[in-house]
Every structure is written in structure tokens, then in C-alpha cells.
């Protein structure tokens, strides 16, 4: 952790020393396990999610190799089915959302001018649960017991009778376990963004990235219970003989699909929305102007998060539900294109009115626009029921959602990685390596996935481990496979680039790009306490606004230094009026202990060691009791309005 920053003019050396004493953690194993610092947790999320991305990507490479030629025997069907199930499950649940949570964790407190998340211990707990749940699911693969029913886990194929063994127990329990992490993270984002914003950061001055994270967090809170209910019912059906999904006993198999997609469609936006927020955060620095149409973009974010709950049936257009319902859901699925279009044109207008600085983060934004727009077209096509009935469950849909998810989420993430690497690591990345990584990634992506539109239209279904030698399938599949290796090379170069940055990168200044949000006013990497003086915000682009610097400069109000303990400032929800200082928790091992007890419990449930599960439940209760026992708080520091 860097300790080299110069003291701000408005804050004395004594204040800085007290801040450092309260917030710094001396390196030790215990400190490593017990930290509640949002920046460390954010970095851990990014690294862990990146690791799961690599695992899921490697399983995709095996699949693409198998599909490179017809009737290939590289992997057996039972293995292939586990590979594609783990690929989808991991990419959606263990990579995309946690990666964006990593960005959010690192950036939200910095962007809103706070010293930490609202619930730092909950934050640490969320990370440990994510790590354990991810390992819980991946550990099943070497035992040949990984989920084998796709990421969507449809019944009755996932019930006990049709799918004996642990496969789908791993899936149901793993997702329930992970859901604890995602939900607690989401609640943390909501409260942090509503209560910890710097004074003056009224809702119309909140960075678009933070808007996107908050909207996403609300979607998580409303969508995830449907998935949790689904998985709880599945586990009860499988293990304890209930009949929620069993039509021979009055259950209904479509119930699973409704609940799954009530979660699953908003989930697409849960993945894409924060990534779009990254685009809105990156663009101003490389176009030299704020995103055009701030209000329209915010409205677009909010309307997407609402409409996305009304489109789930378009995943079920082939199930033969009544046509009238199709026409409603087709309309909703069509209309959700509009707010996405508004955002695209807001970015285009920003680029047209600004002055482009073609550095690597902007390259990735351009790659994003090209790719995401193509994915958007096919998305609008799927809203047309008749077309959906022809192409759903074919490679056309595989092409579509990879364009949306790689285009809409991975490109922005990589833009964000290069944009914030200097802030996160304190070092600059290697421009040449990064450009190679971009071009390999971009080319590989399109060579892999564009042909899938074609062989999807030519009648190739998805989720098949092999296919006959049909003209138009075999050739284009080989092209896809070649593309997937280019794509993998791009990922490899990205990893090399990040390692190079950590080892060899030259030291980064606090603000290498001229960014417009508050994180650029901190040291690179930021001090453990983020801001010596919590800034006062006067506009949408605080670091482009001299008044922000003045607010932390000479004569800065002492009630925003808060050096008398681990403290940050509470403000009002709408207009961010200063309310009072709050004490923030010290580092603690309780989050790790609670997550460990939960891991023991879920493992015991999986392996049907029910007595151990009871012990684990008691351990969870005991840890919670210790955690929630009212602490002796230091006296509250009074601050003026």
C-alpha cells in the first residue's frame, strides 16, 4: 500500500497520521484474512472472478475443439454435457456478476467520495461466500459430478429420476449458496450509494456507473428470490421427495421455467448494465466531455431495470403457451430495445461532440459498440415470436447471447480493466501488449461467434456434443473453433499484460487520463482511507470542477476530515446533505468464520451428512450471534450540516 501521497493543504500531518493509524493494516496472515477494506475486497473479486473466467474459458476451448469437426470423439457426451453446463453456469454466476461486483466494490466508495462500503463486514462475508461457492461448484468437475443439465437446469431432466447422482445437487446448492453472496452484495451497494455519497452529490450528480450499479443491485434483490425458490424446490424434490415439478403428482414442469426466467432475463441486464456503466465512466476521459444526455441515460438505466422483469416469457416462445400471452411478452421484449438504443446514441453523440483520444480503453469501447449493436439486432429479432420459434435453441441464439454478453459485458470490463489498472495497481499498463490483446480478442470474438448465426439458421441445434457431417455445419464450425483459439490468445495476452503491469509497469500518477469522477482525485493506489478530506461535490464532473479541489484544499471544513477513528460521513438520500459521521467497523475474522460455517453446512447437505449439517447450522447461529452482539462504539463525532 502506497504511503507516499502528499498531505492535502487542508489537513495537517497529524490528521494524516491518525487516519493512517486507524485505517492501515500491517501485512500478516490474520490481516489478510480479516480485512474489510472495500479496495482489497474489490481486487479479490476481480482476481477470483478472472480465475473462474479462465476455467470456464478453458472448458469452452475443449468444447470448441470437440466441435471443430463432425463426429469427433475427443470427449464423451457425459463429459461434454458437464463442460457446457459448467461453462454457462460459471460464466454467468461465477464470472460476470462477481467481476462487476469487483469493479463496484473497488469503485463505488471512491466515486461517491466515501471511505468504505456501508457494511464492510458484510462485504468481506460476501466475498468469502463467493469464493467458497465457486470452489464448491468447480470442485465437482474432477469427480465427474459437475452440473450436467445446462446453466438453466430445466426439470424434469434435472430431477432425481432423470438425473441421479450429485450433479444437480451441486447446481441447486451451489447457486443457493452463491445467492447469499450476491444478495448481501446488492444490499450493500444500495445502502452505500444512498447514504454515503459525498456532501453535495445529489442524485443528479451521481456518476452513471454508480447509477448502473444501484439499478443492478435493485434487480438482484428482486430477481434472485425467484431463482432461490426454484433451486430450493428442486433440492426438495430431489432429496426429500416433494413434487413441485412432477406432473404425475400434480406438479408442473413449466413452473421451473417461469421462475428461472423471471430471474434469468433480468439477469442478462444484471450482467450488462454495470458494464454499460463502465462505458459511461470510461468515455468522458477519452472524449474530453461528459456523456451527452445524462438524464436520458439515467432514465434508460431505470427503465431497463423495470421492463426487464416483463420479458421472461420470450425464453418460452416454443413451449406452446397461449398466443395472447406471447403477444404481450413480444411487445415488452421489443420495447426494451429502446432504452438500449438511447444509451448507444448518447455514447455516439458524446464521441461525435468530443475529441477522441484513441487509447486502449477507448478501443475496447469501440469494440463494444460494434459487437453489442449486432447482438442487439438479433435480440430484437428474438422478440418476434415466429422468428424465435424457428431459431431458439439453435446456434443462432448462441451467437446472439455471446454477442450480447461478450460485446455488452466483457468488452466494457476489459475497457474498465485497462482504464482503472493504474488506479488499482498504482502502475501503468504496457500499451503495445494491450493493443495486441485487443485486436486478438476482437478478431477472435467475431471469427468464433459470427458463423454461429449461419449454422444456427442452417438448422444446427445447440447443446449437442457432436453433429453429422452436414454441409454448412462442418466448415463453419471449424472456423468458429479457430476463432476460439484467437480469442483465448487475446485473453492470455491480457493476463500477461496485467502481470507485466504489476511487475514492470511504471508508477502511475493519481490521474493519468483526466477522468471526471472522484476516484481520480485519490492517490494511485488510493490510501487505505481513500480521501484525507471527504470532498464536497458541486457538479456532475467533480474532478473537472475546481470547486471540488477547493473543498479539500486550504480551509476545508474539519468535519470532513474525521480523523478521530474509522469514520465516514452519512448524507441524505436524495440531495446528499451532510448528516453525521458514523463509525466503521475494524477488521474482523467473523465474516470468514460465518462463510466457513456455511460452506461446511452446504457440503454436508450435498453429501447427505445431515448430523454435520445440523452442527454447521449451530455454528452459523453462534457466529451470527457473536457478530451481531452490540459492540461498544466510540463516542459519536458530531458534525455540522
Amino acid at each position, binding site marked *: 500500500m502506497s504511503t507516499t501521497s502528499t498531505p492535502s493543504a487542508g489537513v495537517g500531518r497529524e490528521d494524516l497520521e491518525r487516519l493512517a493509524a486507524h485505517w492501515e493494516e500491517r501485512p500478516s496472515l490474520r490481516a489478510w484474512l480479516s480485512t474489510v477494506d472495500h479496495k482489497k475486497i474489490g481486487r479479490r473479486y476481480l482476481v477470483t472472478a478472472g480465475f473462474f473466467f479462465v476455467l470456464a474459458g478453458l472448458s469452452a476451448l475443449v468444447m470448441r475443439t470437440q466441435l471443430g469437426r463432425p463426429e469427433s470423439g475427443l470427449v464423451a457426451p457425459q463429459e461434454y454435457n458437464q463442460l457446457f453446463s459448467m461453462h454457462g453456469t460459471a460464466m454467468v454466476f461465477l464470472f460476470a456478476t462477481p467481476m462487476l461486483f469487483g469493479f463496484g466494490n473497488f469503485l463505488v466508495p471512491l466515486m461517491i467520495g466515501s471511505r468504505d462500503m456501508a457494511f464492510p463486514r458484510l462485504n468481506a462475508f460476501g466475498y468469502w461466500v463467493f469464493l467458497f461457492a465457486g470452489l464448491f461448484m468447480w470442485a465437482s468437475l474432477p469427480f465427474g459430478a459437475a452440473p450436467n443439465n445446462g446453466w438453466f437446469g430445466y426439470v424434469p431432466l434435472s430431477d432425481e429420476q432423470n438425473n441421479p447422482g450429485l450433479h444437480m445437487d451441486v447446481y441447486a446448492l451451489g447457486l443457493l449458496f452463491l445467492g447469499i453472496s450476491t444478495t448481501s452484495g446488492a444490499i450493500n451497494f444500495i445502502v452505500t450509494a444512498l447514504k454515503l455519497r459525498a456532501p453535495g452529490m445529489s442524485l443528479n450528480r451521481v456518476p452513471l456507473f454508480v447509477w448502473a450499479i444501484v439499478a443492478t443491485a435493485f434487480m438482484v434483490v428482486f430477481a434472485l428470490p425467484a431463482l432461490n425458490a426454484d433451486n430450493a424446490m428442486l433440492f426438495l424434490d430431489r432429496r426429500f421427495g416433494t413434487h413441485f415439478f412432477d406432473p404425475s403428482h400434480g406438479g408442473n414442469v413449466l413452473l421451473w421455467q417461469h421462475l428461472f426466467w423471471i430471474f434469468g432475463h433480468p439477469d442478462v441486464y444484471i450482467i450488462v448494465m454495470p458494464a454499460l456503466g463502465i462505458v459511461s465512466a470510461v468515455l468522458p476521459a477519452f472524449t474530453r466531455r461528459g456523456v451527452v*444526455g445524462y438524464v436520458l441515460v439515467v432514465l434508460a438505466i431505470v427503465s431497463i431495470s423495470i421492463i426487464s422483469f416483463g420479458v421472461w416469457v420470450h425464453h418460452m416462445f*416454443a413451449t406452446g403457451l397461449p398466443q395472447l400471452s406471447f403477444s404481450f411478452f413480444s411487445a415488452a421484449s421489443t420495447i426494451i430495445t429502446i432504452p438500449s438504443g438511447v444509451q448507444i446514441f448518447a455514447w*455516439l453523440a458524446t464521441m461525435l461532440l468530443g475529441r477522441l483520444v484513441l487509447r486502449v480503453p477507448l478501443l475496447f469501447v469501440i469494440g463494444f459498440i460494434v459487437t453489442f449493436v449486432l447482438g442487439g439486432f438479433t435480440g430484437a429479432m428474438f422478440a418476434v415470436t415466429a*422468428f424465435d420459434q424457428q431459431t431458439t435453441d439453435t446456434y443462432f441464439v448462441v451467437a446472439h447471447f455471446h454477442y450480447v454478453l461478450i460485446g455488452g459485458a466483457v468488452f466494457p470490463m476489459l475497457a474498465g480493466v485497462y482504464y482503472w489498472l493504474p488506479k488499482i495497481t498504482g502502475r501503468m499498463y504496457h500499451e503495445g501488449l494491450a493493443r495486441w490483446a485487443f485486436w486478438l480478442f476482437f478478431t477472435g470474438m467475431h471469427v468464433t461467434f459470427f458463423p454461429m448465426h449461419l449454422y444456427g439458421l442452417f*438448422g444446427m441445434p445447440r447443446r449437442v456434443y457432436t453433429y453429422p457431417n452436414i454441409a454448412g455445419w462442418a466448415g463453419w464450425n471449424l472456423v468458429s473453433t479457430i476463432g476460439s483459439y484467437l480469442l483465448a490468445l487475446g485473453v492470455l495476452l491480457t493476463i500477461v499484460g496485467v502481470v507485466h503491469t504489476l511487475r514492470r509497469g511504471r508508477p502511475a500518477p493519481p490521474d493519468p487520463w483526466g477522468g471526471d469522477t472522484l476516484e481520480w482525485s485519490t492517490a494511485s493506489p488510493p490510501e487505505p482511507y481513500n480521501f484525507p478530506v471527504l470532498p464536497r461535490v458541486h457538479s456532475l464532473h467533480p474532478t473537472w470542477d475546481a470547486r471540488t479541489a477547493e473543498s479539500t484544499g486550504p480551509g476545508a471544513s474539519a468535519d470532513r476530515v474525521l480523523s478521530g477513528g474509522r469514520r465516514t460521513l452519512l448524507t441524505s438520500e436524495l440531495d446528499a446533505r451532510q448528516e453525521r459521521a458514523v463509525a466503521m467497523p475494524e477488521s474482523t475474522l467473523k465474516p470468514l468464520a460465518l462463510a466457513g460455517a456455511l460452506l461446511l453446512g452446504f457440503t454436508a447437505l450435498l453429501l447427505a451428512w445431515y448430523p454435520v449439517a445440523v452442527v454447521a447450522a449451530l455454528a452459523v447461529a453462534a457466529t451470527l450471534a457473536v457478530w451481531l452482539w452490540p459492540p461498544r462504539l466510540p463516542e459519536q463525532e458530531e458534525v455540522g450540516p
Partner: protein
Amino acid sequence: MDTTADTTRTAARRAGRRGRPRPLPALPAACGLLLLAGCSGGSPSALDAHGAGAIRVANLWWLLFWISVAVFVEVMALLAWALVFRRGAVRVRHGQPLRFVAIAGAGVPLLILVAVYAVGLRDLAALGTTSDPDAHTVEVIGHKWWWEVRYEGRSGATANEIHIPVGERVRVRLRTADVLHSFWVPQLMPKTDLISGEVRETWLRAERQGSYRGQCAEYCGTQHAHMAFLVVAESRADFDAYLARLDAPAPAPRTDAERRGQQTFVQGTCAACHSVRGTDASGRVGPDLSDVGARWSIGAGAVPNDAGHLGGWIANSQTVKPGNYMPPQPVPAAQLPDLLAYLRSLK
């Protein structure tokens, strides 16, 4: 033009009925740019449509495709404009062109999407029309991993092959015996799922004679990849003849080898799972084999239907289609040729 993937096999199978091989139809010459148009050399392409439903969707696709091309060109032009003319020392203009964002990002797309939605509703209504009381009904039952096919009013069943009279609407009643499957013939009709505990309906109508490849489109477990079927559209006379055969017993053995093979079949383990009309073999677990010699493939599209593949399948089908429900058969090597001869004679 013969439109199936397994052109050779299909042609050979039909040739078997007619007694002489039919030459392969020439593939269309210049594919080049037409790749997108579905000129893909005999693949079951949704764009090479020969059924009323699929033709409707193919036309819909071209409408959507050209709209997308137009909008994509517009967006890329703006992007290119920014990249070319908005770099370097261009003076930064201020002001918020909200009107541009609102019109280009919301207004224009809304108009396009309303039009597309209207067309989509029209096509949805057209695809859904199944209320034709005179239509012949075929019942298709999905199994892991093959298709059982039964015809209204006929006692016999067959597998993985659906015959329909060309140019006529045929109602398809869909059920599943186990998990979800999806019934899909890209060249004839978009897909309809088979839902456990429920019955769904769709219809087929082929505008031209020929064989059309269909495949399960809903992931259904280990061998989802090998759950293909064939829709054979033939003249009304051929269709009626086909239906008539479904009520008759399977052909009786004519040679000694076939007779011995039948004995092996009926008295051995085969009959536990399979049935052949007119014999004591009445197993219901696996496909009815009364016309197995005439079918286009073995294992729902897994391998071609010839003596070699059939022998391999009987000896150990797990090497052909791993995970299917037929265990390796302990047929003594001496009896296998007779069994093959019998099965091959069932057509």
C-alpha cells in the same frame, strides 16, 4: 432438389423401395455470397424452406436482416465519422444534443419496432392456426433419445420417421414419455416443445416432395445430439400405401437365415424391449422394429442403416451412442448374421 442432410442414405432407402438407385441431385452451383441465403448444399436450413410455416419465417428473417443491415450501416457510419473527424485538434463543442439522442436513439427505433411487431403478430397468428378438422393427425412421442411415431387410426408404430402427404396439412400431436424435447423441422415448421404431462400440437405442410431432417431442439440429456428424425413428404398414393402397411404384420421371413434370425429375435433378449408386428415380440421400451430395414438410420440419426452399422449397434450400441438405454447384447457370433438378415428383411 433433395433437401436432407443424409441425401445419400435417404435416396438409397427410397431406392430400396423402388428397386433401383436414384442419382444424387446436383448441388446448386454458385454458392458464394448465397451462403447466407441458405444455399448450403443440402443442410436442413431454415432459409431453404419448403413448408408454409418455414417459408413465412424465412421471409420474416429477410425483413429483419435488411432492417438490421440498414441500422448497422448508420451506426457504423457515425462511429467512423467520430474516429476520422473527431480526433486531434478539433475544437470541443458544448451543448447537449438531446434531440439527436431522443430521435435517433428512441424515436426512429420505435417506429421500426412497431412495424416489425405488427408483422411479427401477423406471422404468429398464421403459424398458430391448427384448427383444421380434416387434417390427418400424427402422434409423436418423445423418448430419450428417439421419436415414437403413431398415425391416427392405425395400430402400428414406427420410429424416427414421419410420412406426410405432400401439399396437405398434417396435425402433429406431441407428447413426451420422459423429459422435455422439442419437435423441429427447420425447413417445414418452427419448433414446438414437448412438455411432460401435457399435450402440444403443431402442424406440418410440405410444399414439395422430399425428405426433411428434423431434430430435437430442447436439451434432453446425454444423447440430445443423436435425436434426429426425418419427415418424408410423398404423394398421396405413396402415403396411403405407407399407412396401409402400418396395419399389416411385418414381412414374414423368407429364407432359412431370416427364420433363424427371427427366432433369435423373439426368443432372445431383443423382444424384451422391442416389438415386431405379427410376432410374439411385443416389448414397449425401445422402438417398434417392424419396418427397421426401411428406415433411414440407426439410433435416431446416429449412424447409417446398413448391415455393418446394425451389427455394431446390436453388439455394443454404447460405442456408437454412449449413454443410450440399450445394453450390449450377448448375441453369439454365429447367430448375428442371421439376426441381421432378419432385421434387414423388415421393410
